[in-house]
């Protein structure tokens, strides 16, 4: 580390190959206000594939303590940029690297944008491709020192007051990994990273949003820096440090939401996963849709579910599960979404807490367009901070609410090998045709602990065609909850008093609905007899002395 050059000079290092964009950026730089006694210079770093080498060459050429590395497509629009930047560095001598937007943590993808904790702001492209204000939590209190701490900073603009050589040897082509590596090099040198507190964004970053993670490059990044980012010992082979996760997508007759679901799986920051799509469709649309992805992504496989019996939708789930080779398994319903960091955050918990059988999190409801809907009681966030619970205690928490607070198949990452695939949606040897996911979680929770993460890490889509909106499913669900209470009692999860309490809750929750059904429903419905039997046995249980 050194303070590189003239302390009254600021060097703008321009990176990239887009000549028109770089020529534009120079115009913007020339119009920035330069404080008295300071001067600026502009260095074109060349069009090398290796961004680190280009930066090092520029570092050697520049006679300036302060450097601003700008990639083609970045346009500084804050006229008092230089003075404000100097003030930040002046007030924070331990600050090595200053960015404009980033994240408090560093995702394994190296990309701040994958994080759940972004900080800073920029004018950048939103999902629709329009220029928009991209920002972290704008309501958060602004730190007084002019910076917000960040571990990952966006690479389109990096400002330094010390020279730390850029690592050329990993040869990252993706600027995201290059910037992430440099942030970690500053960290290794004992210097802080942060993003500037800005009233309005200092910069426009005009490039497309999309980024495909180059998995080979990510592996090099993690082999180099994994020990700083990941809890597993660095001397172990990569495969042991990053156990395989199986993402299972049972697909049926639609590709609109499936595309989003699949891409949310492919965009996981976690580096080692397989995706298995089981196709149960009545037409070839899904197969045709998946084909180009199969050519492109080696971790993806597809099979056509063979219809052997009446329950083939469920069998598709089981057949996906049978094919899973991962140490951990996460189903992904074909209309739901993962947060990019879902697997990373959840696998980390498994590594840090070996007794876990499952990890779940808050999940949001979304509509057809992906807009977040207000939570229902089952979806309401019920932990303020991450917690670890003994498995059976989590079962009791569910039974005192009679709500699926654990989540849908999309929500939960679980350890493979505890329940057999053909026992999916079973508890205590019995198949659950509704609330099968809750039954599966109960089966898993008999064998270890659960982590409940407070952050939203998955999204469950609600649309009119959704299966759980059907009346027969709702009615059967009421009976299934009572069956789950009874079996939990038989399995020793609930004691006598807990059992009676849960049945009371069941009655108080559903009694008025059941009485309505008795009054108005067509008794020929297949679920009617089962519901009446449940009601009689519940009344019997709570009135028994």
């Amino acid at each position, binding site marked *: 580390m050194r303070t590189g050059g003239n302390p009254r000079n600021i060097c703008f290092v321009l990176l990239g190959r887009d000549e*028109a964009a770089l020529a534009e950026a120079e*115009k913007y730089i020339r119009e920035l206000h330069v404080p008295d006694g300071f001067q600026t210079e502009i260095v074109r770093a060349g069009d090398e594939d290796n961004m680190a080498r280009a930066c090092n060459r520029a570092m050697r050429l520049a006679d300036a303590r302060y450097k601003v590395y700008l990639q083609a497509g970045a346009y500084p629009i804050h006229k008092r940029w230089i003075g404000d930047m100097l003030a930040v560095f002046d007030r924070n001598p331990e600050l090595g690297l200053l960015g404009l937007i980033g994240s408090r943590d560093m995702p394994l993808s190296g990309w701040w944008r994958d994080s759940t904790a972004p900080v800073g702001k920029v004018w950048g492209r939103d999902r629709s491709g329009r220029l928009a204000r991209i920002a972290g939590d704008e309501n958060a209190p602004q730190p007084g020192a002019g910076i917000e701490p960040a571990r990952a900073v966006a690479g389109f603009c990096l400002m330094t007051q010390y020279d730390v050589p850029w690592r050329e040897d990993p040869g990252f082509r993706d600027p995201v990994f290059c910037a992430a590596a440099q942030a970690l090099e500053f960290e290794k040198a004992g210097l802080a990273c942060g993003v500037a507190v800005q009233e309005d964004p200092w910069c426009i970053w005009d490039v497309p949003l999309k980024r495909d993670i180059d998995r080979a490059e990510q592996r090099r990044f993690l082999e180099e820096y994994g020990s700083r980012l990941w809890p597993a010992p660095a001397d172990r082979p990569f495969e042991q440090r990053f156990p395989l996760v199986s993402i299972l997508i049972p697909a049926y007759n639609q590709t609109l939401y499936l595309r989003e679901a699949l891409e949310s799986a492919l965009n996981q920051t976690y580096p080692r996963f397989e995706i298995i799509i089981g196709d149960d469709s009545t037409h070839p649309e899904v197969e045709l849709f998946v084909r180009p992805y199969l050519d492109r992504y080696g971790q993806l496989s597809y099979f056509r579910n063979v219809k052997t019996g009446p329950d083939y939708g469920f069998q598709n789930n089981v057949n996906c599960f049978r094919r899973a080779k991962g140490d951990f398994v996460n189903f992904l319903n074909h209309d739901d979404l993962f947060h990019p960091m879902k697997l990373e955050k959840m696998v980390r918990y498994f590594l840090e807490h070996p007794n876990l059988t499952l990890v779940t999190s808050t999940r949001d409801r979304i509509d057809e367009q992906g807009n977040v809907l207000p939570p229902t009681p089952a979806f309401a966030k019920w932990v303020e901070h991450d917690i670890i619970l003994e498995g059976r205690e989590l079962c009791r928490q569910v039974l005192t609410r009679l709500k699926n607070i654990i989540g849908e198949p999309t929500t939960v990452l679980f350890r493979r090998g505890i329940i057999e695939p053909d026992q999916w949606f079973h508890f205590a040897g019995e198949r659950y045709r509704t609330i099968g996911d809750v039954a599966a979680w109960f089966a898993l929770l008999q064998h270890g602990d659960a982590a409940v993460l407070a952050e939203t890490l998955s999204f469950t889509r609600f649309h009119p065609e959704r299966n759980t909106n059907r009346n027969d499913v709702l009615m059967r669900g009421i009976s299934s909850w009572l069956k789950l209470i009874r079996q939990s009692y038989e399995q020793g999860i609930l004691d006598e008093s807990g059992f009676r309490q849960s049945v009371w809750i069941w009655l108080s929750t559903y009694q008025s609905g059941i009485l309505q059904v008795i009054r108005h429903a067509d008794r020929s419905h297949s679920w009617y007899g089962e519901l009446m039997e449940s009601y009689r046995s519940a009344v019997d249980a709570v009135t028994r002395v």
Partner: protein
Amino acid sequence: MRIGSVIREEPRDLTHLKHVLRRIEQDVERESSLRELVGLMRENRYTDEELMEVVDRDMIDRVDLLNRVAIRFYEEGLYDHVIPLLDRAHRIDPANDDTLYNLGYILISFGQHGLALEFLRNIRDRDADVEQLISLAEAQVHG
């Protein structure tokens, strides 16, 4: 089969137009960039639709930019382009006083006094210039 059905129109590269408009918006070489834009439009290098497409997709302060460009087009005699730009600005923010004033001013200059009044009367922050324009338009409308 007609030839038109096999020649597919490539989307036009509007990067240069975006650069020029952004400079105007961000006050970077603004005067020369406005001159350049006038030249480009005079040579029919871009259509109004393309200009507004770039404004919609790539600019930040769209209403201010549309007003600024419309005024320059008016001053340079590019009258055909002025109303479409102001109309777009008005649709983005119907309550923007600058847009309302500019629409009123330009419609008066085109002899559309009644229409001008509809915009001018919606201005919330009325200074002497606004009142003068309103009086002028009313005098023309009411004889």
